[in-house]
């Protein structure tokens, strides 16, 4: 089985690119692959704990928890990007890690495939 690293730079709710990244991760994990997800820039919003699910907003906290529970998925947020937005360590969803940007490049090093979803 192979490893996919997904880098995501697009915002939560305001862009559906994170929805794509989460659904793709789920499909990959279901096929036995492992997935590293890196969120940077506005995508660090995904790591904010306490997101409430309303039907007018795409809600990703629950699918993310399910992904963490598989053990085949890890997610890491860019620490500086998060802090700049006021997301501190205790604002972070359980299971989410925080690192500097080099973590992403290292994850890409050992990945079979990399999908880098640039900002928008």
């Amino acid at each position, binding site marked *: 089985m192979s490893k996919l690293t997904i*880098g995501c*730079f697009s915002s939560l709710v305001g862009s559906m690119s994170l929805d794509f990244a989460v659904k793709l991760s789920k499909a990959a994990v279901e096929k036995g692959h492992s997935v590293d997800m890196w969120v*940077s*820039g*506005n995508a660090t919003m995904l790591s904010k704990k306490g997101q409430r699910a309303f039907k007018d907003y795409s809600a990703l906290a629950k699918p993310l928890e399910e992904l963490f529970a598989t053990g085949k998925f890890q997610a890491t947020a860019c620490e500086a990007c998060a802090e700049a937005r006021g997301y501190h360590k205790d604002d972070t969803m359980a299971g989410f890690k925080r690192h*500097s*940007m*080099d*973590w*992403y*490049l*290292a994850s*890409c*090093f050992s*990945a079979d495939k*990399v999908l*880098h979803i*640039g*900002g*928008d």
Partner: protein
Amino acid sequence: MAIKKYAFVVKSLPYKIESSRLAMTHAISSQTVEIYLEDGENVEPVICFIGDGVLNCVKGHQAMKHYGVTSLEQHIKNALLLDLKVLICKEDVDKFGLSEASLIMDAEDIGGETKAQVVPYSEIQQALDSADHLLFN
């Protein structure tokens, strides 16, 4: 010794979105990636500006003065100071009527020795062909 090549491709205009800035900061973070890798392993980034992205390379950004934020110019110079390879697409430079004199081609003012290169797209395509991973922004 395993070296993996990453091609960061900047195709977006600066500032309005964070895309080109994040390309630069992630490319520059290659300088500290070894801590996560085995001995002899490393990452070699190349940064390519294509399309509207070449407008990031126009000299003289005053973003710090006006908005208190590091300019894309500063990021490009930081990359050159660290000897990262920076390629700027000649066809797009020509399309916008830009001269090399109007572009950020070096980081001499901060002690950098490496220069940016204005190259035909075919050379950028070669960089994409030889890269292990492609990161478009």
